């Protein structure tokens, strides 16, 4: 019978080489044990609170609310975490788990570099060796993050295969894992890949909605009308949605990178333009051609520039629980500038996709409505690229 492990409806599963099967089984067993282990949870909470700086703020964006003239806007400030994004939530969990499993080495893929920096950080803190795979194209777009990872003691390997972006970095990290399993944990950065990764990463990121739900109840005495987050693989989005899934009145809105538009080939909006397929260990939606060849997707955002989406998002889409909307490069850049100017918060270009949709949605809603937008990361890393997008000749 069909493998029921790690399924979200028809999505998920474990489509990986036989060489890795015992590794993912071992990981699953370890996770099932440690997730209920009080000592593990105490150590992780300690790291999240005293190292990463949790809980993160739920900030009322008063000026933005007033300016848009509609729904009340709150920002969940994952950009304030140590290393500058939500990625640290998952990385601290996985690195600690890997350490408990006796692993001495972490490998990771990275797109924008945020997951790579977070993994390099955890490796430095926990005395582990670390190798990060990054598409060569992205090492150029995010040169500063490459330096950061090296500064933290990690090795960065530029990946030149395929489109030299995030999907190729994932492929190369998987290849590396099949080469060296005994002492190495693959610290996957998003809610994707083979089971148990989508579940593990979701659980470690669920801290975002666990906090924001409490924070909004405290601030407003009620739940928000919508939660908005950007979606590449979908880790900050699933973390932002998770504790609201059973709250039927809360709209869950994932913002996909449409690149130059979903009617062009230069897009990475998987749910909007992809179809069901099997890739990178999972069944889910993928941008692909009629023969199942994975499409060379495009987005200005290196972190959303991925042809697939996590299986739980594919499922939330299927059952109509979450909505996935496309946001173009132009809209994201406008939102990047808008939030900087209006609230003095420079969001990551990834997070700017979520902000961009809120700019459209908020004015259409009454003033008694509440939106929570996850600012998944800070935008310092993007400043040079956005300046260039606007025609300024700035280099890092």
């Amino acid at each position, binding site marked *: 019978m*069909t493998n029921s492990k790690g399924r979200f409806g028809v999505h998920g599963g*474990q489509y990986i080489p*036989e060489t890795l099967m015992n590794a993912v089984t071992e990981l699953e067993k370890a996770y099932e044990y440690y997730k209920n282990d009080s000592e593990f949870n105490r150590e992780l909470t300690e790291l999240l609170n005293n190292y990463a700086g949790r809980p993160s703020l739920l900030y009322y964006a008063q000026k933005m609310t007033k300016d848009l003239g509609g729904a009340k806007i709150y920002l969940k400030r994952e950009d304030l975490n140590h290393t500058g994004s939500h990625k640290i939530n998952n990385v601290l969990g996985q690195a600690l788990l890997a350490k408990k499993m006796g692993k001495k080495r972490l490998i990771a893929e990275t797109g924008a570099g945020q997951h790579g920096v977070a993994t390099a950080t955890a490796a430095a803190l926990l005395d582990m060796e670390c190798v990060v795979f990054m598409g060569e194209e992205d090492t150029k777009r995010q040169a500063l993050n490459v330096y950061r990872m090296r500064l933290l003691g990690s090795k960065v390997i530029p990946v030149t295969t395929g489109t030299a972006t995030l999907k190729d970095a994932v492929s190369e990290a998987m290849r590396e894992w099949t080469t060296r*399993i005994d002492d190495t944990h693959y610290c996957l950065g998003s809610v994707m890949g083979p089971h148990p990764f989508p579940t593990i990463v979701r659980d470690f990121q669920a801290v975002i909605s666990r906090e924001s739900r409490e924070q909004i109840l405290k601030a407003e005495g009620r739940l928000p009308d919508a939660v908005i987050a950007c979606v590449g693989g979908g880790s900050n989005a699933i973390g932002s949605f998770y504790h609201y899934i059973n709250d039927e009145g809360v709209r869950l809105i994932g913002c996909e990178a449409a690149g130059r538009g979903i009617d062009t080939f230069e897009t990475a909006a998987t749910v909007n333009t992809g179809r069901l*397929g099997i890739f990178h*260990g999972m069944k889910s939606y993928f941008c692909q051609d*009629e023969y199942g060849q994975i499409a060379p997707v495009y987005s200005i955002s290196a972190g959303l520039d991925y042809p697939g989406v996590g299986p739980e998002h594919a499922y939330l889409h299927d059952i109509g629980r979450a909505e996935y909307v496309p946001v173009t490069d132009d809209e994201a850049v406008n939102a990047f500038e808008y939030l900087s100017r209006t609230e003095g918060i420079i969001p990551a270009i990834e997070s700017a996709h979520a902000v961009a949709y809120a700019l459209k949605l908020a004015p259409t809603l009454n003033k008694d409505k509440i939106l929570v937008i996850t600012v998944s990361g800070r935008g310092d890393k993007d400043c040079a690229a956005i300046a260039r997008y606007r025609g300024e000749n700035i280099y890092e």
Partner: protein
Amino acid sequence: MSNIKKAFENGKVFIPFITCGDPDLDTTAKVVREMEKNGADIIELGIPFSDPTAEGPVIQGANIRALAGGVTTDKIFEFVSKLREDVKIPLVFMTYANVVFSYDIERFMKRCRDTGIDGVILPDVPFEEKEEFQTIAKKYGIDFISLIAPTSFDRIAMIAKEAEGFIYIVSSLGVTGVRSEITTNIGDIVKVVRENTDTPCAVGFGISKPEQAKAMTEVSDGAIVGSAIIRLLEKYGKEAAPYVGEYVKQMKDAVSV
């Protein structure tokens, strides 16, 4: 008995691999015929995939060249139909889950039967996920080939019991590619396989030299070679057929000793 199993009845087998359409299908056709003429017992035909995660740089390169040349799954089926006018030895497709899934598994397996394909290898479909593919393959008489890796340990018996055609033993950790030495104890794996099935087993990944092929077939039933052949395609392009033929002959002679 399937044609694949029959191919193992007359001694040790040699299984060469080639990516269809690298650099074009005319060349692939010439190479396949040279392989058969020079003693190949079964041929693995790769349907290229944009992101072949189980492959090393050499076969990745072949996938890129083939796709750049415009080859598609439909063109490959037409090509196999023509090959079957004279090529008699078993032919096995090696590709990735999404190529089959996206074509529609039922439609894919039916066309395999209609064009004369004997088996399918999908390196990203492990035991736990094979049901979806194997049930339909069986319906059309296509062997679904299982893989066993150096890290399979307690999984070997379970995989062997449900194996069809032949078992593909992955010689080493990592991806496909030429290796100077193979350190896995293949004999130990084969022993467990034999205790659980009479399905033959062939070893692949990392084999390039006649002496390696000989050593591998001393402990198993066959040797599979991919990257070393793709290197000849890389080097000689459209003129590769005679070079591949000569290489296949050497390798077949080595495994037959």
